[in-house]
């Protein structure tokens, strides 16, 4: 199997990546992209083209996939129904599995595993709730969450990430 076919198979077999091969490079995505309008560092059409050409290392080790703002404009407008924002998630998921993860996402992963939320509520903020007239916060379902994160392999993924 050639390099291009091999990588597009990896992408299409992942959740979110299924539709990538329908792309015919019309550029509707790029012209709908608010990020591409203000920087040359990200262009959704280019990310898809490189992926379909099998340029795996360039795609997953680069900054570009992390510059998508997840606005879904491109996905709404794609005439080929390529789920572009979801394809970007699939590429990010692959990148992460291979050890490429920006710090901020690393922090999100630890926060989810440790606190059950990606933005923590400090004890101080929680203690002010009655004075503001807000009901107490309900407990977070940590026990169930831990089981789910372990069943999906997230826990293992994150431990590997913390070591690297």
């Amino acid at each position: 199997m050639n390099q291009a076919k091999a990588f597009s198979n990896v992408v299409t077999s992942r959740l979110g990546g299924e539709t990538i091969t329908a792309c015919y490079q019309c550029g509707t995505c790029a012209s709908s992209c608010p990020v591409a309008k203000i920087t040359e560092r990200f262009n959704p059409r280019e990310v898809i083209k490189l992926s379909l050409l099998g340029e795996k290392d360039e795609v997953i080790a680069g900054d570009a996939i992390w510059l998508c703002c997840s606005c879904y404009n491109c996905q709404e407008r794609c005439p080929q129904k390529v789920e572009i924002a979801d394809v970007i998630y699939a590429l990010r998921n692959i990148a992460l599995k291979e050890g490429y993860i920006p710090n901020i996402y690393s922090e999100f992963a630890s926060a989810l595993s440790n606190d059950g939320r990606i933005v923590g509520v400090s004890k101080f903020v929680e203690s002010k709730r009655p004075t503001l007239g807000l009901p107490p916060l309900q407990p977070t379902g940590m026990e169930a969450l831990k089981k789910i994160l372990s069943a999906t392999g997230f826990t293992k993924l994150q431990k590997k990430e913390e070591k690297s």
Partner: protein
Amino acid sequence: MSSYALFLGCTIPARQPNYELSARKSLAKLGVELVDLANFTCCCPPPVQSIDLETSLAVAAYNICLAEEADLDMVTLCSGCFESLAMTNTMLKNDEELRARINRILTEAGKEFAGNKEVKHFLQVLVDDVGLKRLKQSVTRPLNNIKAAAFYGCHALRPSELLKLDDPERPRILENLIETLGAKSVEYRNKLKCCGGLLRGFSDDLALNLAKEKLANTAKAGADCIATLCPFCFIALDLGQLQIRSKLNETFNMPVLHYSELLSLALGIDPKELALETHKIKADGVVSKILRSR
């Protein structure tokens, strides 16, 4: 009286008592009951979807299961929570294979997604359960001289096929809700463009430039304030203005109010009860304009 399980998420309890107070108080006034269920977790919005999409779907489905067990539909105030939960709900209802895959994971936590509940955004509850007509009749302090710029952000509207809130290219729900309060909804350039919120922390320069454009366009349109429906958009535009001032050397002073805050003021709720001091760009001018117009 309709009842919903309130999915509060993380950013609102962590940083925006103004959103939570105004949403709770206005819905109570309009006869919508909110139930706070135990054991919700993170909704798993785009930042977690970026890490592992399957995990996100499973955790979102777990949260929906809790509402199913309580026999309640869910309401979210945050568009991130809405995107994650409503998207998962529709995907799992429509795709048997995916539902089976996620349910195999949920078994570990003793749950099973049944797919018999709805996930709604706060705005949908206002339109579907209260109705614009009754909403209008409930207004005791009309916002007659206020010009508000409707700010949708992304994840209330898109992906529209799964979220079904409104037309993704020409939505009207927020403009209609603004005008029901007596305010004028002003049109501005690139209204539906992203606030840049999700790039914060990875590429702050791009995030601030996206927010700057929104602020410039709403200011140019003569808006008194921006009306938001998402805590991330609120941060990008409100706190964002302080960062834009220091890093890009541009000053806007554009108050950003959640729709729920405008609604609470229009329903006659005392501004002192709404934690308006949470705003980085003070909303005092807008509030006194509303109070003066009585």
